[in-house]
């Protein structure tokens, strides 16, 4: 009872309501796409991209510091030119998204290309790109720190921060619009995505451009990962994408029911995870993923019972 009162109190604050709205929308989008990614054996794209996004974020946060240092060095320890100072200022003022999103999109296209190319060992190339981005990202953050607490920064980028509670109205608006676009695209292309997922050769044979849809999937995945990084951090995003889909597939046997169930599971787990994390002050991302994991176990048991 005390918990419910406390929760009611929390919901008085607009930032808590924003966080819930954003969290639930992200969960819904990622679970919708997750079904397609898991079935197409594209999970690796989600995983690779989340690491790439970490690299992108590290680049975005260390770029102003890097520019400052480079120009100071070029001026032989003297004052750097006013132009360079302006550039550094401008870089630190722009939203990180401006760098992270294009970076992740480019990686998405690259991953799709390498992932499908069996000649150069697609999976190895993906692993190379994702670990590479992770290492370079950490290197940049360490060498050009934008704040004094590096390990704190790294930790919050990897495992999600409390920044979901400090979202501004604009951030919420951006996130809501992006989520609605993703959901709209998914509904509009639903039948085509089904066909491309189930049978690419047949889809090509009836004259549809399967590559176009693969690209669409990769691009939308990149978008979702960039938005979701705020919520659960880059290491845990994959969980948000694959767990609901896998849980739903344990029990349901048609594509539509799997999609709907996956969305419902994901939203419930996100709500549950955020509530628990508010009440028990546990990390948001990890709590949501733990809830997803529990749900997966429950659905596995139900699936087993249904089959026997």
């Amino acid at each position, binding site marked *: 009872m005390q918990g419910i009162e406390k929760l009611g109190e929390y919901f008085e604050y607009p930032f808590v309501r924003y966080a819930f709205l954003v969290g639930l929308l992200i969960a819904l989008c990622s679970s919708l796409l997750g079904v397609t990614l898991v079935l197409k054996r594209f999970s690796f794209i989600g995983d690779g991209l989340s690491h790439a996004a970490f690299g992108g974020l590290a680049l975005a946060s260390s770029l102003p510091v890097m520019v400052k240092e480079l120009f100071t060095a070029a001026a032989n320890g003297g004052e750097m030119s006013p132009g360079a100072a302006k550039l550094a200022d401008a870089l630190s003022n722009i939203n990180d998204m401006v760098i992270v999103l294009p970076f992740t999109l480019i990686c998405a296209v690259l991953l799709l290309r390498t992932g499908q190319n069996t000649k150069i060992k697609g999976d190895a190339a993906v692993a190379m790109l994702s670990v590479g981005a992770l290492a370079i990202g950490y290197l940049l953050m360490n060498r050009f720190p934008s704040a004094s607490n590096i390990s704190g920064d790294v930790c919050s980028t990897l495992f999600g921060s409390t920044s979901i509670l400090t979202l501004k109205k604009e951030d919420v608006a951006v996130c809501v619009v992006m989520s609605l676009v993703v959901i709209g695209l998914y509904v509009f292309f639903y*039948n085509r995505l089904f066909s491309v997922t*189930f*049978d690419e050769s*047949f889809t090509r044979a*009836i004259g549809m451009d399967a590559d176009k849809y693969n690209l669409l999937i990769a691009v939308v995945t990149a978008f979702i990962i960039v938005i979701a990084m705020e919520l659960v951090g880059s290491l845990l995003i994959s969980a948000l994408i694959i767990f609901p889909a896998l849980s739903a597939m344990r029990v349901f*046997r*048609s594509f539509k029911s799997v999609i709907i169930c996956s969305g419902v599971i994901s939203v419930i787990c996100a709500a549950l995870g955020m509530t628990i994390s508010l009440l028990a002050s546990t990390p948001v991302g990890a709590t949501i993923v733990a809830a997803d994991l529990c749900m997966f176990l429950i659905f596995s048991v139900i699936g087993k019972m249904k089959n026997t």
Partner: protein
Amino acid sequence: MTEQIICRDLTLGYEGVPVAENLNFTVCQGDYLCILGENGSGKSTLIKAILGLKQGMSGTLEWSGGIRRGEVGYLPQQTMVQRDFPASVREIVLSGCLAGCGHRPFFSKAQKQLAADNMERLGIAALADRCYRDLSGGQQQRVLLARALCATKKILLLDEPVTGLDPKAQTELYDLIASLNKQGTTIIMVSHDPGAALAYATHILLMGDRGQLFCGTAEDYKKHMGGDLYAGD
């Protein structure tokens, strides 16, 4: 006889290296053409060319008699992805109607009826709400065949349709394909199995290392090959 596919001096290859040279054949309405050949003889490449997914290095492949590029119903080989795909039979058969959707996002009533009719025709109407992965291999092939029929009624291209089926299911599937052929659908089947090819097909195209070894009616093929059905040169 209306000609549907006309192939003249077609050479297919990858990056300048030919895998099948000087293919010459014509497929007419109501034909049952069986394409025989060992692995590496360029059968899969020829399939792509017939579907309009691959350009020849030289020569031409034309669709005529009311067939356009992308209007060949295709039964591809099964992939690993499909074996445990959570989708109902109805969803899969309906996806064959996508070609007729244009820019519309959803299926029309007429298309849903077409899917239902095709399921009825192939005897899988009772399975409509079953999950694809729970079906037997033979039933799965019928589902994919129904999907191909939703894309077109005129001509079907089957890529080794009986692979992995037990003998009884194989015979059933061959009989089903033959009955579709009798109802007027042109069949092009790629196969490993010369015995079945001779039992059902009206025409045979035999492919060897560098291209076409034989093309003609099944009767002529028997004479041409004598006792040895498969060996080429």
